[in-house]
């Protein structure tokens, strides 16, 4: 199985994802340059964190129009696994591949810390290795991770089992106080209807080694192996 990590000019978690996949999960990985339409026959695509094109207008707004994204969109629509982490999540919502949008954190501040999320489904491509209600520890690092959808859309997401993760406390309680950024219904990650595309704010690639504080991110990445 071959992985592709998309590189926008200001992606900055591209090497982190590459390193986790290659050196820890021992997978074959290729970088996919934003100006190229060639996905190099990869089986899985990761859109990493960072600031894509500077994100001065809106996070991910320009990235969706890049040549590589044309290919990623059609790749995703064919049902192949795609994961958007942090800025990658923002790009996926801007591209219309996922519902909702990511707004400024309610604190108005960038926030970097370890959080806990609770797995909400075992149905998605990226959730096969997890159990429902499993609590995972992963870091967040974002200024705009405040997930917003309208109430109707939220109901639709819930009815279709599209909510992947909710922010919770260490014990797994989904509380207002465990919501770091103001996301609707504590949502930390969502799937598309088909459940092959996952967008999430926490960084699984930063949680693949115990020396860095957690290995829980591997559960997600290993689900597609």
């Amino acid at each position, binding site marked *: 199985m071959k992985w592709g990590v998309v590189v926008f*000019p*200001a992606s*900055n*978690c591209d*090497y*982190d994802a590459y*390193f*986790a996949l290659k050196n820890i999960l021992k997978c074959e990985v290729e970088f996919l340059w934003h100006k190229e339409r060639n996905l190099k026959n990869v089986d899985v695509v990761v859109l990493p*964190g*960072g*600031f894509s*094109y*500077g*994100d*001065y207008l809106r996070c991910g707004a320009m990235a969706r129009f890049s040549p590589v994204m044309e290919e990623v969109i059609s790749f995703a629509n064919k049902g192949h696994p795609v994961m958007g982490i942090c800025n990658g999540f923002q790009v996926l919502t801007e591209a219309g591949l996922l519902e909702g949008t990511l707004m400024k954190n309610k604190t108005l*501040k*960038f*926030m*970097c*810390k370890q959080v806990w999320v609770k797995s909400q489904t075992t149905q998605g491509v990226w959730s096969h290795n997890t159990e429902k209600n499993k609590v995972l520890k992963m*870091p967040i*690092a974002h*200024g705009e991770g405040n997930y917003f959808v309208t109430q109707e859309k939220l109901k639709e997401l819930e009815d279709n089992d599209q909510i992947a993760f909710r922010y919770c406390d260490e014990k797994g309680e989904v509380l207002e106080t465990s919501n770091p950024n103001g996301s609707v219904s504590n949502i930390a990650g969502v799937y598309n209807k088909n459940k092959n595309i996952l967008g999430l704010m926490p*960084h699984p*690639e*930063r949680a*693949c*080694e115990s*020396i*860095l504080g957690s290995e829980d991110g591997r559960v997600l990445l290993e689900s597609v192996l």
Partner: protein
Amino acid sequence: MKNLGGNLALAKKLGLTEYEYDLIKDYLKRDPTDLETSLFSAMWSEHCSYKSSKNILKNFPTTGPNVIQGPGENAGIVDIGGGWAACFKMESHNHPSYLEPYQGAATGVGGILRDVFTMGARPVASLNMLRFGNPESAKTKYLISRVVKGIGDYGNCMGVPTVGTDVFFDPSYEHNPLVNAFNIGIVKKDKIFLGNASGIGNSIMYVGAKTGRDGIGGAIMASAEFDDEAYEKKPTVQVGDPFMEKLLLEACLEAMQTDYIVGIQDMGAAGLTCSTFEMADRAQSGVKINLSKVPLRAKNMTPVEVMMSESQERMLLCVKKGFEEETKKLFSKWDLDAVVIGEVIDSPYVKIEWKGEEIGEIPVEPLVSGAPLYERPRKSYTPSSSVIASGSEAIPSPKVMRSPRFSTENLAMTKASIMEQYDSMVGTNTLVCYHDVPLIRVRENGSILALAMGSAEYLTYLNPFEGGKYIVLKAVEKLASVGAIPLALTDCLNFGSPENPEIMWQFEQTVLGMSEACRKMNVPVVSGNVSFYNETNGKSILPTPLIVMVGLIHG
């Protein structure tokens, strides 16, 4: 050449003394043009020339078995084994941060990152050391929030983790906060780059952001005290563009993997002036540049403005002749323009052309190293429990001491809330942060870098020599506590006006104390920065020597 009238009034306005102006005339054997006066004023400013501190800084030990590059380049470099080296520096951005805290702090981070990647190193960790006034005042709260956001927005976008912060409050910083930024990068020992313009006929190329009027006179501003008119100087503060810098970082590091980049230098203080002259000086060469070729952002810029602009995110390259097109192609991959603006010449001059006319031919050496070195008068003082001679309060008032935000506990909370706003984990090498000694994994050689910050403002005020010793020893102790061997240190020496004999004495004693401890513990000083004139309306800050000592834990 036009304008040979000589202009002492202009020289004085730009911060030169009459003595210095006469010295310029001696060097040129004629009156300087306005352009030349401007260039000299920038390069001979305290900020660029270290004219008051150079003689004293000579006391620092700067060599050692691990030292690959000591002071004088963009950053210092030490061997960390396995063919790899660590490149690091610390720099102040105090004055810009007071005028516009967000942009001042952001461009401070941008500048220190460029210092490191200019040497060929990939930046792997940042630290910052901040000093503010009364923690209860609205002004301080505003400054903290903007400074922290500035540092965060820049570093976070660059993908360089900020792994530690050191914050301290004292009334003496109320009108003169300190923003000192540190960065460390990793470089292959045989891929270190220096800012040299060597090889006659090689091309001088300009890359990065276009030149505007940002920061004109910034080096001079950083060499003057603040007064109530400070705000009028506000338009000179630069604006940072971290996205542009990220492109520059990646493009430059890629270019350095080729064999046609001869030298590289960032355009920081005094912009194009400093970079052309310093590159020529290091290579003992000369440079001819055509200012009309410099990509401009603002309309109707004068040659002086083009030479002095401190627009951010710009680099100057010396490229092997015949490889200009390859260079352009490489930079265009990152959507950056690379433009040939000149070439290396064999006479030791910087020749400046503008609209088809040669408007200046200035000898390199006097401008770079000809600034007069001052043995400023020094006078010891008896520490007073209330007030330094220049009028600042040395010891916080009991009210501030009792204030809940000043307690150790709350200081720790303030630090934690600041740290949370920085991406401290990007790069997945941060083993420890939120701690006295952040630890960074070096995958390249399996070692771990330990970073110890050191300061002792009150002790340094009471006994500058002992204070200087203490900050070095304390950092050694901190490193030892995590099992790290000290390699070298970088410093930022923040003081009041060097023209005040007591401040000058304070500065000298601090350096002597640091030097003694450095010698005893075998820790050389490999890079650093002096920030004088940290006073407002005659009130000086507490003496604030800040250091970061880098230690190594073998794998």
